[in-house]
Every structure is written in C-alpha cells, then in structure tokens.
C-alpha cells in the first residue's frame, strides 16, 4: 500500500471516529426527545432551534462540574475505568464497513476503517473488553453499591456473550467468513434482495438483538445502573466528565451494536434493486460514476438502518420495565443459550439439506 492510499485510509478512520462521537452526542439528545414523545411531552427545545444545541450545553455542564474522588478510592484506576470504557467502545467501530469503495481515477477509497478477515472476532474481543471499564470503575470507587453494579455488569455480560456468540456462529455457518465486508457483500446477490441474513436467521436475529440489549446495558437489562436499587450502580461515585465518558461509552456501544446488527442481519450498505439502478445509471453516467453514486446511496442506507436500530433501542427503553436479577439470569442461561444451540443445529440441518438458499459460487469468488 503506497502512501496516498494510507493517507486516504487514515482520513476514513478519522471520519469514522468523528461520526461515532457525533452520533453518540446526538443519541443523548435523541434519547431525551424520543422519551418525551413516547410520554406525550416535547423534550428539550430551549437550547438552539428544536434544542439541537442541548448536547453542547450538557457537555459544558459536565465539564464545569466538580471532579470528585471518593475517600479511599484508587485514584489511578478511578480515572482508568471510564477511559477504558470509552476506548473500547470507540475501537469497535473500526472494522464496520460503512460502504463499498469509491473510485477516483486510479485511487480507490474503501469506506471502512480497516478491513480484517477476522472482523467479527475483533468486534467481539473489543466489546468484551468494555466490561473491564465498568468493573474497574466500580471497584476503584470503594463503594458497596458501585461494586454491586460492577459485579452485576460483569456476570450479565459474560452470560449474554455466550448466547450472542452462539447466535453468531449460525450466521458464520451460513456465510462461511468472519470478514464483515464479505458478509455484507454476500447479502446482495444481483437480482435477489432476499439474501439478507435476517431471512435466513430469524431466530438467530432475535437472540442476537436480545443479547445486544444486555451487552450494551440498556433497558430491560440495565441492571448494572438501575437507579432505583443501586443509586446509579457502577458510576455512583463518578462526577463531571468521567461520568460523561461512561454515559457516552454506552451510546457508542448502542451505535456499534446497531451497526453490527445492520451488517450481520440486514444487509449492511446493500439496498434492494441497487444493481438495476447501477446498470441504469451506468448507461448515462459511465460505470465508475454509477458505482460511486451507488456507494454513496449505500452509506445513506446503512446509516438509515443504524438509526432505525438506535431508535428501536430507545423505543424499547421507554416501553419495558427492568428485569429482576434472577429473571435476567434465567432468561440468559436457560432460554437463550439452549435456543442458540438449537438454532445452530437447525441451521446445520438446513444447510445440509440445502434448504437455505446458497450464495451462488460465481458471486462468492469476486
């Protein structure tokens, strides 16, 4: 890879980083507005037009709050906890393909931070690290409630990662690759749009989305925070922007989980009839321009899918009450994991008897 290509890649990584932060920022605003709308209110509308500057006002507020260190806390770990939560949340978006490639002359820009052939494993590894941020923060606070919240978070994440991984194995059995870009491309065979994995893996998708809710500590699985029982859980002792980083990390996790679900199950940057549209555009604009236009529309498509999932996360949050802890564990261990195993067996059987439509080999070889 020569230098200009590396420069373009660095730019793409920077843009993905910025977009993750921007979406997380405005998720806080969206959360409040959606919560308000679901409760027959209008939400924040004072700061700027429609309250659009509200996240900035919140940031200013958080930055000017007192930096508080509880007595007897481990100061280094106390600072390290939110940093780790934030870093791991941000790292996960690096391998998500936000679009196909753009072509300008001989320069080809891949709209993806880094393409690795083990993208799915990378995301799982990084997201699993996120629980250390919560665990360290809760431990370093020297507070019983924080520690309880942190322990809850750890056990919950471990329990649901199992079912999530097993739901994923079924996807990998269908797609036979770990690369997120390959998985995306396989979901759009020219002429057929029903190759989205959600059609092949409906049960797996339900398991995955339930586990995604648990992994991101969102309602109905927000037991690590649970304001009513644990006074805020692992971030009880946190104030100022350290608190802000935890809240931010949660929204970035929601964004990453939405992106992963869009890529794995809903065809990523593919949209129906894209090849017909591309062929029609190629007649008037030329093949390269047509491809670039389709790529641009693909970026719009994947973000539409991501935003729908983020909306769904928030919609569920303001609909369902929190699970009890024993119910959470029972759901994870006695329902979701057996279901996921059953799903693996079912998928294996369906592949064996050629019931699941196979991606044509000529398309795979590209």
């Amino acid at each position, binding site marked *: 890879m020569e230098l200009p290509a590396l420069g373009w890649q660095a730019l793409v990584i920077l843009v993905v980083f910025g977009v993750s932060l921007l979406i997380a920022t405005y998720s806080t605003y969206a959360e409040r507005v959606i919560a308000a709308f*679901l409760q*027959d209110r209008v939400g924040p509308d004072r700061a700027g037009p429609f309250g659009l500057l509200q996240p900035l006002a919140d940031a200013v507020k958080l930055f000017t709050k007192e930096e508080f260190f509880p007595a007897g806390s481990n100061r280094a770990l106390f600072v390290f906890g939110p940093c780790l939560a934030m870093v791991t949340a941000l790292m996960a978006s690096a391998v998500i393909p936000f679009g196909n490639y753009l072509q300008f002359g001989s320069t080809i820009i891949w709209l993806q931070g880094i393409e690795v052939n083990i993208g799915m494993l990378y995301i799982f590894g990084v997201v699993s690290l996120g629980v250390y941020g919560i665990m360290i923060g809760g431990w370093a606070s020297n507070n019983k409630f924080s520690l309880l919240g942190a322990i809850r978070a750890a056990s919950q994440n471990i329990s649901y990662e199992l079912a999530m991984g097993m739901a994923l194995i079924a996807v990998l059995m269908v797609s036979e690759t770990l690369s997120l870009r390959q998985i995306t491309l396989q979901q759009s065979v020219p002429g057929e749009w029903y190759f989205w994995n959600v059609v092949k893996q409906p049960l797996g998708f339900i398991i995955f989305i339930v586990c995604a809710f648990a992994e991101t500590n969102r309602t109905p699985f927000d037991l690590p925070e649970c304001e009513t029982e644990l006074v805020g859980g692992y971030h009880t002792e946190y104030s100022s922007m350290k608190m802000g980083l935890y809240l931010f990390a949660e929204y970035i996790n929601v964004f990453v989980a939405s992106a992963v679900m869009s890529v794995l199950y809903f065809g990523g940057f593919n949209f129906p009839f894209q090849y017909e549209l591309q062929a029609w555009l190629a007649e008037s604009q030329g093949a390269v321009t047509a491809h670039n236009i389709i790529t641009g529309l693909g970026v719009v498509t994947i973000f539409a899918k991501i935003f729908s999932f983020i909306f769904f996360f928030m*919609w*569920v949050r303001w609909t369902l009450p929190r699970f009890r802890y024993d119910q959470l564990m029972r759901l994870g261990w006695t329902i979701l994991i057996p279901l996921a195993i059953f799903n693996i067996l079912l998928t294996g059987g369906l592949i064996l008897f050629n019931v699941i439509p196979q991606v044509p080999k000529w398309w795979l070889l590209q």
Partner: protein
Amino acid sequence: MQSLSNRAKILEKKPMTLAERAYLPAIFQGLSITMRHFFSKKATIRYPEETRPFSPIFRGLHVLKRDEQGRERCTACGLCAVACPAEAITMVAGERKKGEEGLYREEKYAVSYEVNMLRCIFCGLCEEACPKAAVYLQADKMAPPRFERDEFIYGKDRLVEPVSPDARSQRGIQLTPEQAQALFNKMTQQAV
C-alpha cells in the same frame, strides 16, 4: 368472605401459556402502545411562548384604576386593607394640593399604596370592599416570579394603571379609544 360491593374479581393463578412465557407478544403489545403515544398530541405548553388561556373571572395582579379624566380613583379610605384577610395592603393617605385636581379625583388620595404579593391570596375581597371602584384584580396578568423578596412589594409605580390605553388591562373600567386619546392629550399639555 362475602363481597360487599359485588365488584370483587376472583383471580386465579393459572400457569402462564407459551405465548405469555415467550415475552415477545407482550413486548410487541407494549411497543405498539408507546408508538401510539409517540404520534399522539403532546400535552406540553411551551410556557413563555404559549400560555394557557385565562378564565374571564381569573383574579390576578392588582391594578389601581383611573377615572374617565385619567385621575386616580383611590381615596385612601383603607377599606381594602381592612377587608384583606392576608393583611397584604398598606397605604399612606395624603391631602390633595391645589393644582393636583387633574391627578387625583378625591380631596384625599393615597401617597403610597403597597400590596405584598407574597402575602396576597388573590381572594378579591379588596375589589369588593372598594367604594370608589379603584382597585381591581386583572384577569390577564399574574405576579411574575422574582429573585428578591422585597421586589414582591408592589408600590404605586407598578400598581397604578398606565395612561396609555394600549397597556391597560381588559377588565374593570374602560376608556374608549377617543376618551383615551383626549386624556393623553390633556396629560401631555399638563406636563408642558
């Protein structure tokens, strides 16, 4: 036990059906309910821009009225202060000097007239007690919030009705626009 109202329902603790145990139907039911609220009309009134309509008999901020010639009606008889159950009204009476006939209607007038809006319960008894139809509780104005307690003691500067008809309350004795213009001309001539 026998039911007294005949409305008691006997609850059976049945084992949950498969649909109930699967959570998902109930979750979708809940989601549809919240989605209906998402599109429903919002109850919020954006206060400074929008206000609730006042009732026509709302008793709000006090006003000291002027008569048709723009003279203060109040004669500082003190009946409002006597009638006030919250003891919110104080006043100091004074004698009208020669040349002030255009300002005060009666020979005795209120040199100072103060209403403590923190004490006032807005019952309107002062309005009923007034023999000169001088004090009214406006239907369209409220005592706004303030930072200091002493700012809630309203003196004559804030209580007496303004001369300009546009700024006047819509309740109580009214001047026609022609009357108001004549009054305004008269007042400006006096000032010169």
